[in-house]
């Protein structure tokens, strides 16, 4: 690792591309910005090409993939915003904070659209828990972190799933999903439009948190990653609660033309993405960015992943309106730059230009895109020979049943969801413990049903069939709650895309999800990809988590799964 570009995670061919775009050598700041933006986590360079298979639109889709969250119409001028996001690697290192900041990040994605977050869900995977103290530690820490953040925010955590399997031993999965409600005409997007408009920064001060966290999420976990431990970000749910209320109040005034949360790759990604979606260019001054630590240099400010920060694009002349509302909530806002239309993202340090790059070259539209080879893994062919008729019928069915009920993968999940405030804001009509959670939509008779599902053992055995099963299982959960399935968000967790057998699994899963979603008319409106979930030894099972939303026109018709009274008739539907 002697080349500067390798240190920021770029390959030689990628560095050549930077040289070509700039027509010169990048300075250190620029190189780091390309490094984080062209990491797998930010650029989706190995996965993007396959997304075209997904059905992403129908007459209900108001916002498909590509924004902070997807939005689906539920009638009467109302819509649901939703997205799922992984925080696997941070949670492997510091389970409480990793999971907490994962929840924080996904909540920001929802209110950045202008939606009021009303529910959280999560999908978790760990190694086998029996007799493994490390797994227990991770599991307890993750659950506590999710609870700590969601409870403090006052957003009920109403559902999720957890499985234990040895393939997750070194690579736990923590995916968090947030769902919000929004009126059609209140949807906001992350556009830096209107030349001369102000770029404003709101929320927590910037520290050296999660430095390089974006590129960090894109490498296999090794001994070395121990050293990056100081990269741990700490969540501040109280700050986020204030930020949420302040942003929703701000968006209602009409002075905000664009809004984006600062997530992976911090200011760098927020600036280049909003610029690309808007007028094309932006100029910001790092000295105006509030900092928590002394002596921070421009590159640290630009790629820091400090939590609880938002970027606002504000109509010129209305900055004071923003300041007033933000201050009412005990926060500060500052102008850090302005919208331009020269296509450049210009980073200033006072009067000095310290970095200048075409904004769209950083963004995923300008990032490298790979079409990887894939190859059917050997295990798949082998397992095809398996015949279920070869399995001996057990002698004692009662014992088998008891073992199953008592196994970590099938036992009650009450221990988890009792730690989550699943009732706050009094809209949870069907609580955790049933097939899907049902939330009322305040001010209407409507309800929405929410679930996350994925059986990754099935996906390992047959990625295409397994991922179809995940989608239809989610749909069955939604239907059994009395709702019409509308759309999904997908959390795709896989091993290294650079290994042909893993990439085959990924591709098969995408094809399976696409086929099932097309069949059910439940388009994919948002999602997340987490690759490199592998240790030196092995990869995780392919784990495409499906988060689904459905609508009930009359929430009083919501249905729960338990038997209601003696004498009721039991009917078995299907084959």
């Amino acid at each position, binding site marked *: 690792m002697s080349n500067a570009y390798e240190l920021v995670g770029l390959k030689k061919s990628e560095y050549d591309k930077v040289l070509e775009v700039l027509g010169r050598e990048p300075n250190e700041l620029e190189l780091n910005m390309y490094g984080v933006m062209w990491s797998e986590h930010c650029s989706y360079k190995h996965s993007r090409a396959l997304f075209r298979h997904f059905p992403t639109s129908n007459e209900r889709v108001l916002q498909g993939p590509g924004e902070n969250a997807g939005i689906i119409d539920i009638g009467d001028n109302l819509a649901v915003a939703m997205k799922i996001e992984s925080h696997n690697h941070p949670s492997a290192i510091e389970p409480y904070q990793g999971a907490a900041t994962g929840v924080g990040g996904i909540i920001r994605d929802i209110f950045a659209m202008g939606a009021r977050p009303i529910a959280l869900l999560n999908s978790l995977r760990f190694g086998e828990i029996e007799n493994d103290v490390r797994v227990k530690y991770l599991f307890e820490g993750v659950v506590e972190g999710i609870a700590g953040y969601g409870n403090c925010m006052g957003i009920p955590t109403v559902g999720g799933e957890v499985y234990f399997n040895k393939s997750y031993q070194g690579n736990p999965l923590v995916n968090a999903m947030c769902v919000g409600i929004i009126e059609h005409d209140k949807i906001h997007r992350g556009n830096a439009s209107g030349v001369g408009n102000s770029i404003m920064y709101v929320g927590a001060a910037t520290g050296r948190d999660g430095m390089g966290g974006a590129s960090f999420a894109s490498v296999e976990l090794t001994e070395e990653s121990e050293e990056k431990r100081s990269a*741990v970000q700490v969540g501040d749910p109280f700050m986020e609660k204030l930020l949420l209320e302040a942003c929703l109040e701000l968006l209602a005034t009409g002075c905000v033309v664009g809004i984006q949360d600062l997530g992976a790759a911090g200011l760098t990604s927020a600036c280049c993405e909003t610029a690309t979606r808007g007028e094309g260019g932006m100029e910001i001054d790092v000295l105006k960015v509030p900092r928590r630590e002394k002596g921070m240099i421009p590159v640290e400010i630009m790629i820091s992943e400090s*939590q609880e920060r938002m970027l606002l694009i504000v109509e010129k002349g209305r900055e004071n309106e923003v300041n007033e509302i933000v201050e009412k909530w005990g926060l500060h806002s500052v102008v850090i730059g302005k919208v331009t239309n020269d296509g450049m993202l210009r980073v200033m340090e006072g009067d000095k230009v310290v970095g200048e790059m075409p904004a769209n070259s950083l963004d995923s539209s300008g990032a490298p895109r790979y079409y990887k080879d894939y190859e059917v893994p050997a295990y798949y062919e082998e397992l095809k020979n398996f015949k279920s008729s070869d399995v001996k019928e057990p002698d004692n069915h009662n014992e088998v049943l008891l073992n199953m009920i008592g196994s970590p993968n099938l036992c009650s999940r009450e221990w988890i969801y009792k730690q989550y405030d699943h009732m706050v804001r009094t809209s949870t009509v069907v609580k955790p413990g049933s097939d899907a959670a049902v939330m009322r939509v305040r001010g209407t008779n409507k309800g929405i049903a929410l679930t996350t599902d994925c059986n990754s053992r099935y996906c390992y055995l047959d990625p295409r069939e397994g991922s179809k099963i995940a989608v239809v299982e989610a749909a069955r959960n939604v239907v059994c709650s009395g709702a019409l399935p509308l759309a999904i968000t997908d959390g795709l967790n896989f091993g290294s895309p650079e290994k042909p057998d893993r990439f085959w699994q990924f591709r098969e899963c995408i094809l399976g999800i696409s086929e099932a979603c097309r069949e059910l008319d439940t388009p994919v409106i948002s999602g997340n990809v987490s690759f490199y979930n592998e240790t030196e030894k092995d990869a995780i099972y392919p784990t495409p988590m499906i988060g689904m939303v459905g609508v009930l026109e009359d929430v009083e018709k919501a249905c729960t799964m338990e038997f209601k009274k003696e004498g009721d008739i039991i009917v078995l539907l299907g084959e």
Partner: protein
Amino acid sequence: MKAKVYVTLKNSIADPQGNAIRGALNKKGFSNVEDVRIGKLIEIELGDITKEVAEKQLNEMCEKLLANTVIEKYEFEII
């Protein structure tokens, strides 16, 4: 043998709690307060062991259980 263990956040780690308390103190009229960091004080009754053993034990306890060395540092004092 008794010991006091002090567990504090590493300097590079944000302390939202400390920040909020600093804000509250500033507002309460203590405008001179510049920074607040909140850590733990753990008092341990170690029973009848020697100072050497105590030191060895405390190091181990801190590394394994009392501090989360990913984000915290520790110090102790035997009394």
